[in-house]
């Protein structure tokens, strides 16, 4: 059905959503877990424990939608991000960019927050046809879990099998997480990243604190 001639750049509203004032005039940004005040908590947090927790704040989160049969789409992504979009349950890392497979026509790309808009623009310029890019940077956040018991906390929280044999480093799944959902990425042998929706982040934070009690929780800012 693709006979559209209008360039994607014009037919889609693109918006630089970050403020450009600097210094004292710069509007204050608050990550989803801002209210939990991890900074203060980390100051009083134990130094050692089975689980370490940290929010990676204010990254650029871009949802890419398109077809893996669309060569132009794939090459456009490659051209701008320098990475090949990964296949099912895989991730692809290139410098500061990482792409997670979400569904057969959907990927989540994390980039430095300030670059999100430019990258979106560049990608739109590099492709045409049936694809979509959505900036969701305000709508979700990244929570890092690490430590010897991080895997146990995950086992309490998700029905997905997080054992080494089934969940090697680099794999990513979207699954149930407590009573919400999360994109779960294994970033290292004992480290994991959870990507959760903003409105659920307080709940996830509450849940994690509770689930970590028996292992000892170290909070990092």
């Amino acid at each position: 059905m693709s006979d559209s001639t209008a360039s994607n750049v014009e037919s889609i509203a693109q918006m630089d959503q970050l403020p450009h004032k600097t210094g004292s005039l710069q509007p204050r940004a608050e990550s989803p877990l801002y209210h939990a005040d991890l900074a203060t908590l980390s100051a009083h947090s134990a130094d050692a424990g089975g689980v370490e927790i940290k929010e990676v704040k204010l990254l650029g989160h871009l949802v890419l939608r398109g077809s893996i049969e669309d060569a132009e789409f794939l090459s456009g992504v490659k051209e701008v991000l320098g990475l090949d979009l990964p296949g099912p349950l895989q991730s692809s890392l290139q410098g500061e960019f990482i792409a997670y497979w979400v569904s057969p026509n959907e990927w989540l790309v994390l980039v430095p927050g300030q670059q999100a808009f430019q990258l979106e623009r560049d990608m739109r310029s590099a492709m045409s046809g049936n694809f979509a890019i959505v900036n969701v940077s305000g709508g979700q956040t990244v929570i890092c879990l690490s430590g010897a018991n991080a895997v146990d906390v995950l086992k309490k929280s998700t029905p997905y099998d997080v054992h080494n044999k089934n969940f090697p480093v680099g794999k990513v799944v979207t699954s149930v997480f407590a009573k919400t959902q999360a994109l779960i990425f294994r970033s290292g042998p004992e480290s994991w990243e959870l990507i959760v929706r903003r409105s659920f982040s307080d709940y996830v934070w509450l849940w994690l604190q509770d689930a970590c009690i028996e292992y000892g929780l170290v909070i990092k800012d």
Partner: protein
Amino acid sequence: MFHIYCPHCEDHREEEEFHASGEAHIPRPLDPQSCSDEEWGEYLYFRKNPRGLHHELWVHAVGCRKFFNITRDTVTYEIKEVYKVGEKPSVTSSEKNQ
């Protein structure tokens, strides 16, 4: 609790990630306006509801958000196959009226 293979994620997942969306292969009439009330009622509400093999639509709601079909025995709860929307089932009931 079912263990369901998602043909899009190419992975077995727990039932909690899915929603059942009813009988599969019920196409929306191409010209609803030409349907009689009875035909429209059949489309809306009347189902095979078989005791035995059932072709049904599921969505991997907490996952890839894609719909797909399952052929499942409604008595033993055995999943015989999964297949993508638009594909035909290979396991079918021998009964004609299915």
